[in-house]
């Protein structure tokens, strides 16, 4: 009880204003582990201290991409940032806002697309760090509108039937009830093909929604088969010549399918799994829309970008 009391005090001292009221202050027989706490029925990870050198490194990496591949082309560049869940529980200067300011300052050739007004805690899984695809239609609409790639779409909501105990669940001995995964399908998606690479770097065809992966280790891998260095989604029904290159982390896996209507091809690039120096082997930059979509979690750990 004494430990729990100490934690409660720590929670109140750490989080002020609405966050303090939001904190459930209740761990049934449980202590917080590794910075995970329960708030508004969500498992939330306390954001680590923002490291300016990581933001600088990320900006340098994007600058390298621009100088090496985009400069002199007709590509149009954008960036958007996904806040960590804790951003919706705190007031004041937030990590993702500081990072976004840095990007705007350092990378003036990119147009900032601010996703924050469209997101709240309920748009994320309760037990995981990722956002929920079924909550992202407005985000996709905003991004597509900004990139002049919006096409009206009718989605069917599909339920994955398994239990999704997100990445934060194992850090509590008494986990919350599992999340449910809903994914969106459309006639356009039915006609698309996805090409990626296996562990040994061999080309392979993949589904947009990989049920086999979902039933494996991490159900979020349902979306575009999980981590991938390069993936290309071809949409034969999309507007001819309209292409998107999406530099992304795992948040991009669930968002990209919702951008398909406006593009004939989407190339996803995860620089954790492919060297930026070898991108020319996989992508020919000419006149694509180029969107850098990263979570603040990754940007605060940006040395992972190769």
């Amino acid at each position: 009880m004494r430990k729990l009391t100490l934690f409660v005090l720590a929670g109140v001292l750490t989080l002020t204003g609405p966050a303090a009221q939001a904190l459930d202050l209740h761990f049934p027989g449980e202590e917080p582990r590794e910075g995970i706490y329960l708030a508004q029925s969500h498992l939330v990870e306390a954001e680590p201290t923002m490291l300016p050198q990581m933001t600088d490194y990320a900006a340098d990496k994007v600058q390298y991409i621009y100088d090496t591949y985009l400069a002199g082309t007709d590509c149009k560049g954008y960036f958007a940032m996904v806040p960590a869940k804790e951003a919706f529980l705190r007031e004041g200067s937030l990590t993702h806002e500081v990072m976004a300011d840095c990007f705007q300052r350092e990378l003036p050739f990119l147009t900032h697309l601010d996703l924050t007004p469209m997101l709240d805690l309920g748009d994320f899984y309760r037990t995981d760090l990722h956002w929920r695809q079924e909550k992202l239609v407005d985000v996709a609409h905003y991004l597509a509108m900004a990139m002049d790639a919006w096409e009206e779409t009718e989605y069917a909501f599909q339920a994955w039937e398994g239990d999704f105990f997100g990445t934060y669940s194992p850090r509590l001995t008494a986990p919350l009830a599992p999340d449910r995964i809903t994914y969106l399908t459309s006639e356009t998606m039915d006609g698309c093909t996805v090409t990626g690479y296996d562990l040994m770097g061999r080309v392979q065809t993949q589904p947009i929604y990989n049920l086999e992966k979902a039933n494996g280790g991490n159900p979020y891998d349902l979306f575009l088969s999980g981590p991938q260095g390069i993936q290309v989604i071809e949409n034969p029904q999309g507007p001819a010549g309209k292409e998107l290159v999406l530099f992304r982390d795992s948040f991009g896996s669930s968002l990209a399918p919702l951008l398909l209507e406006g593009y004939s091809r989407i190339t996803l690039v995860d620089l954790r799994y492919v060297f930026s120096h070898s991108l020319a082997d996989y992508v020919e930059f000419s006149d694509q829309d180029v969107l850098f979509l990263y979570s603040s979690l990754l940007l605060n750990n940006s040395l992972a970008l190769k």
Partner: protein
Amino acid sequence: MKKLLTLLALSAALLLALTACGGSQEPPQEDAAIPVVLGDTLGADLANLFLPMAVTDESATVTSLAEGVVADLPFETMVMPVEPGLLTGFGDVEITGFSEGVMFGPAISTIPFLGYVFQMEEGADGEAFCQTLQEYCDLRWNICTEAEEVTAVQGGNYVFFLMCPTSLEG
């Protein structure tokens, strides 16, 4: 495997000074034979490719050593020069004490595989350098995947560091 056994036999026959560090490493024998990294994991196998090359090849460079280590891996690899400072896989800890270094890894793959070869600065403490690498490395450096083992060994004036799965099978 034949290549590996040949290299192991060669290394055992050489009587050269070699400092070793790392939790998976056998201490040097009294007869000063080159120690080998014990075990049949991927990290041990690659460290045992590195050690004899680092000690016996007078023309070796950090690049040639890294290329030698990854030559027979079943995926295409890239070798990139690095400089002292922040390095992938070590969080916000600056890694210094080396004069030249390269990072190597799969050209395109989600395998949690990240390695370095460092040439130590003159008079640098290689054992302490290995310990620093082991202490500050992050097996989940890219957040979404996680390496299973860490290997850090010194051979001559070079240090080999690797985070990787214990096997590439399966």
